[in-house]
């Protein structure tokens, strides 16, 4: 019995908790992609770099706050910087919309043109972030590191396996819950939120109802800024910030949004967790876990790992490609490709 509990602890510690945190971060990112796709009807390749931009601003504000001695005690200072990061990103996204996308929107250009211009925006942001903060990996998380420490857990419970939850992981889950709940409340309950869904659903009819498309587009960008920056800051608190990593996050985020069905917010959240759980469980070595579960005679000698951890990113791409091939509208129905 104790073996079984130890096995469960191992699984929670190394698969469940990290996957929930990473999945939440992906879900927030994918929500941004899916909202922009729903309302503006294109895949925004600049999304990863937008995330890097928002995180960068938050880091800069955090550094400044730390330098004047303003911190949040055991919580990371970046939480104070986050709203400023969001505001700056919102200004950036509204700015790019004004100088880049609006022109094509008014001319009703092909979505492909939007996607190609988002590549242009991606280049600019990518360069800008490296110009300002540099391409190196950096950490900006301060305050306490753990909510539950592995050693303390062992001492208190007497289990041989440790169990830990760190502060960024718990903040991630709490903030994601708040963000998702308020997003859904906004979309379902408010006039503006409903008009956003109406525009995403049927543009012509929405115009007939007197819904101002430009206003809805602006609100969409602002919400995308909030979600994206939050996702980026949470990921950075958890694993550190590096511009190239953020650019690469584009793929698991796209994967999450598509797996859930592009344009479908509920799907984006589900997609985020599907991707994170697959990435982590397919590349996790189950040796220790099986060691507790199986009888002595069947103990595995190998790591019992389906794929090496280097293939973590490849897992999300593979799921993405499989979903695109077999069910392109995603698990929750999104817009047909």
């Amino acid at each position: 019995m104790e073996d079984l509990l130890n096995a469960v602890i191992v699984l929670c510690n190394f698969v469940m908790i990290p996957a929930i945190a990473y999945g939440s971060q992906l879900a927030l990112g994918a929500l941004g992609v899916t909202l922009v796709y729903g309302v503006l009807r294109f895949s925004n390749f600049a999304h990863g770099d937008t995330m890097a931009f928002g995180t960068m601003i938050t880091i800069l504000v955090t550094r400044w706050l730390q330098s004047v001695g303003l911190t949040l005690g055991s919580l990371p200072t970046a939480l104070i910087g986050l709203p400023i990061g969001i505001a700056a990103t919102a200004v950036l996204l509204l700015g790019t919309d004004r100088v880049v996308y609006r022109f094509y929107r008014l001319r009703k250009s092909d979505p492909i043109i939007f996607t190609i211009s988002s590549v242009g925006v991606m280049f600019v942001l990518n360069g800008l972030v490296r110009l300002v903060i540099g391409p190196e990996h950096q950490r900006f998380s301060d305050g306490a590191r753990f909510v539950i420490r592995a050693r303390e857990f062992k001492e208190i419970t007497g289990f041989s396996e440790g169990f830990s939850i760190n502060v960024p992981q718990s903040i991630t889950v709490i903030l994601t819950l708040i963000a998702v709940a308020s997003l859904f409340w906004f979309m379902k309950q408010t006039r503006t939120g409903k008009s956003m869904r109406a525009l995403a659903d049927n543009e012509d009819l929405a115009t007939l109802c007197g819904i101002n498309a430009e206003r809805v587009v602006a609100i969409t960008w602002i919400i995308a800024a909030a979600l994206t920056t939050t996702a980026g800051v949470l990921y950075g608190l958890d694993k550190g910030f590096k511009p190239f990593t953020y650019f690469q996050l584009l793929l698991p985020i796209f994967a999450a949004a598509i797996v859930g069905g592009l344009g479908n917010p509920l799907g984006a959240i589900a997609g985020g967790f599907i991707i994170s759980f697959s990435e982590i469980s397919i590349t996790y070595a189950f040796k220790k876990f099986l060691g507790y579960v199986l009888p002595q005679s069947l103990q595995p000698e190998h790591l019992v790992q389906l794929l090496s951890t280097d293939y973590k990113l490849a897992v999300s791409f593979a799921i993405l490609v499989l979903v695109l091939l077999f069910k392109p509208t995603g698990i929750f129905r999104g817009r047909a490709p």
Partner: protein
Amino acid sequence: MSLLIGENMTGGYEGVDILHQCTVRAEEGEISVIVGPNGAGKSTAMKAIFGMVGLHSGTVWINGEDITRLSPQDRVSRGMAFVPQTNNVFTSMTVEENLEMGAFLRRDRIPETLDQVYQLFPALKDKRRQPAGELSGGQRQQVAIGRGLMTLPKVLMLDEPTAGVSPIVKDELMYRITEVVRTGVSILMVEQNARQALSIADTGYVLVQGKNHYTGAGPSLLQDPDVRRSFLGG
């Protein structure tokens, strides 16, 4: 003075004129119907009145105000509502949300209007929490008409409301439309099914190749031997 007048309208799409000196009116509290053969410009005439088709001559009036240059949205605020023939509901939104979107521009309280719409279309009340995309064709049309009514329009413009629904549903829809008129809303509609439409019409406009061919009270047009011969198949 008629409530809504599209007078001597000439225009069309991308330089090709479809309407030629075409005149259509909607009278206070009446049903006006535009009928005619395929390609006669029926829908174009209606869209021109709503500002979705460019006119290079002619005038559109509502309540004596010249609205020829106004955008469709501005015409909504002047008391016009337009229900397109297809894609006329938000499929992913519930019936009630569809209706609320109809009232998007209104700043006053809307529950009374919602109740009125549910009284006109009782079937919708039962399904008000269902996504409109899951409804049958006839019910979708009811949602679409209901959405139009939510703006509290003076005149409701329907583009072929009975296209693609079964005959029984057609009858029911026609009946509902006459009920709508009883609440004081004028109706201007385009119909493929001329016989049925003219039978409930106070005024009928028969268009041929973008021109007015016959105009008159609906039932009298139905009796007219010329109209019968040329459009109603004898």
